[in-house]
């Protein structure tokens, strides 16, 4: 799975680096000074690199935790995100990462403890108020879990700091680590879902809907708070039927009363990322379809966007109270 591992000099002796390298004994290890020498350089093709991404083991030095953009929330007022990893195992055509980064290599920042310290520091500022931390912003939270042991390292931090909520956002089925331990009531395991036909068309290399639902069911049965993320909603002429069928399927499998939150958002990309991605995939239908620019964001027309959100909220209202549904307003 990983043929090449670039290793920053500063983390060469880090125990996490050693452990990951031991997991891939056949991988070529290439030393580097800073990950940017590889990841940020010009003249790279994300689409080609996606054929065989390398793993870069690095240290993050600052800005471990950032404020989440306004409109990115699942019930709390204080929302932050952190990225222990950049890029994703999967290859979803709508993903903003392919327009944001020049490289498709995976970066893993192995100095987890620095992230954890900043998370605790922020949460302890308001001990009586819940603070939400999103881990699946620049990566899939769980897809590389067997390599990163991310939850194993981070869940104990949230276990102690109960006003700190963690959202694990994923399309993966890598939930064994969660099933092997007691659930945390302040950790939301959020699955990104789309109708199967759309997932097959656009969510390349990701587990299919059925496998995600199986993972989701197991987590809920174990007692983990579950999140459902219908974001991005993709327009198709029959989107109402497709999403209605999806919602029917999902709520036939999960206990809606024990769902923590549902979030919704239509397909959208910042204009710069859209242009970069369109250049990579000029042959893809998603980027040939009629889209509009609004406040620097490329998406469906405002009317179409409002209609899709309204339709889907209405469909969801059959299963969930409104206060569990959060339209993403970015």
């Amino acid at each position, binding site marked *: 799975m990983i043929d090449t591992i670039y290793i920053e000099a500063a983390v060469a002796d880090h125990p996490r680096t050693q452990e990951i390298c031991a997991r891939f004994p056949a991988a070529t290890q290439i030393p*580097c000074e800073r990950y940017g*020498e590889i990841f940020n350089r010009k003249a790279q093709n994300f689409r080609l690199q996606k*054929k065989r991404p390398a793993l870069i083991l690095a240290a993050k030095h600052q800005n471990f935790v950032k404020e989440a953009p306004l409109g990115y929330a699942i019930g709390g007022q204080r929302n932050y995100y952190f990225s222990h990893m950049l890029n994703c195992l999967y290859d979803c055509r709508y993903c903003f990462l392919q327009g944001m980064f020049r490289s498709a290599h995976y970066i893993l920042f192995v100095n987890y403890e620095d992230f954890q310290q900043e998370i605790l520091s922020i949460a302890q500022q308001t001990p009586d108020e819940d603070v939400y931390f999103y881990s699946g912003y620049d990566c899939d939270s769980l897809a590389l879990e067997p390599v990163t042991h991310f939850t194993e390292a981070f869940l104990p931090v949230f276990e102690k700091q109960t006003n700190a909520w963690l959202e694990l956002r994923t399309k993966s089925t890598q939930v064994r680590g969660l099933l092997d331990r007691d659930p945390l009531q302040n950790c939301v395991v959020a699955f990104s879902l789309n109708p199967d036909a759309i997932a097959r068309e656009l969510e390349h290399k990701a587990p299919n809907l059925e496998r995600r639902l199986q993972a989701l069911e197991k987590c809920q049965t174990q007692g983990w708070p579950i999140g459902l993320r219908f974001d991005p909603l993709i327009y198709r*002429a029959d989107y109402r039927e497709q999403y209605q069928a999806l919602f029917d399927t999902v709520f036939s499998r999960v206990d809606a009363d024990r769902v923590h939150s549902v979030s919704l958002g239509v397909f959208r990309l910042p204009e710069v990322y859209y242009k970069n991605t369109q250049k990579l995939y000029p042959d893809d239908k998603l980027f*040939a*379809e009629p889209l509009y620019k609004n406040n620097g964001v490329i998406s469906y027309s405002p009317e179409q966007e409002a209609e899709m959100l309204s339709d889907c909220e209405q469909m969801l209202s059959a299963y969930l109270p409104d206060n569990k549904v959060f339209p993403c307003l970015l």
Partner: protein
Amino acid sequence: MSRYKQFIVVALACEAKPLIAHYKLKKRTQDSAFPCFENDPLSLIISGVGKVAAAAASAYIVATSDRPEFSSWLNVGIAGHQHHNIGRAFVAHKITDASSGRCFYPTHITDLPCPTAGIVTADKPVDDYPDDALVDMEASGFFETASRFSTTELIQSLKIVSDNAAHPATGINEKQVNALISAQLETIDDILRHQQQLAEELCTIHQAPAQYEAIASQWRFSHSEQIQLRDILRRWSVLNNGAQPTREDLRDCHKAKHVLLWLNAHLPDEHP
């Protein structure tokens, strides 16, 4: 004429000779700065020794070619290593310029026919080899220049060990170099074949829509209108399962902007 080129940069005539024979390359007669050989889509240039020469030759070969949309690059040459056996071939995974300390990282996204190694590009011949890298005199100049013209996934440097601590470089002659390169022709074939596949893939992805040339030549499009035309024809094709507008569709268009207006108006306005 191909839409892509495969450039091979070598330092020495004796490195070039087996490649010229194997790929049936013909000497270009118009060149005076560097000897160049070609057999479309392959072009080979003999740079002379050193990173500056390699950089200059890389720029020269692309500047004197037919400005391909995509190009792949391969630097082939000999190198020293402390202990690797003479004749072993390595593809560079890191190239360090010894004098500046700058590093370059070729990306490997296809299977390689030989192992990879770090390369240190020195300004002059060395007899004290570093522990863990090959030593050459061209790779950094080659890579830095080639990456101005192509994406790095299409740029590789292949080095064949010609000397080591037990057999220093002073004893090497042209005949031996020729033999070292000749023995790795299959390896070179393999790398070029993979590079060709990737270049062809990029050509296909970015191919102008079928009707583009015909329409662009029938009306007078400004540069920005040409870009719009290409984009809208591509969208036409993607959204209409490959269908393109016909001459009959555009019969009432008298100007380029009428063509663009018509094409825009007849794009499917409904999503699939």
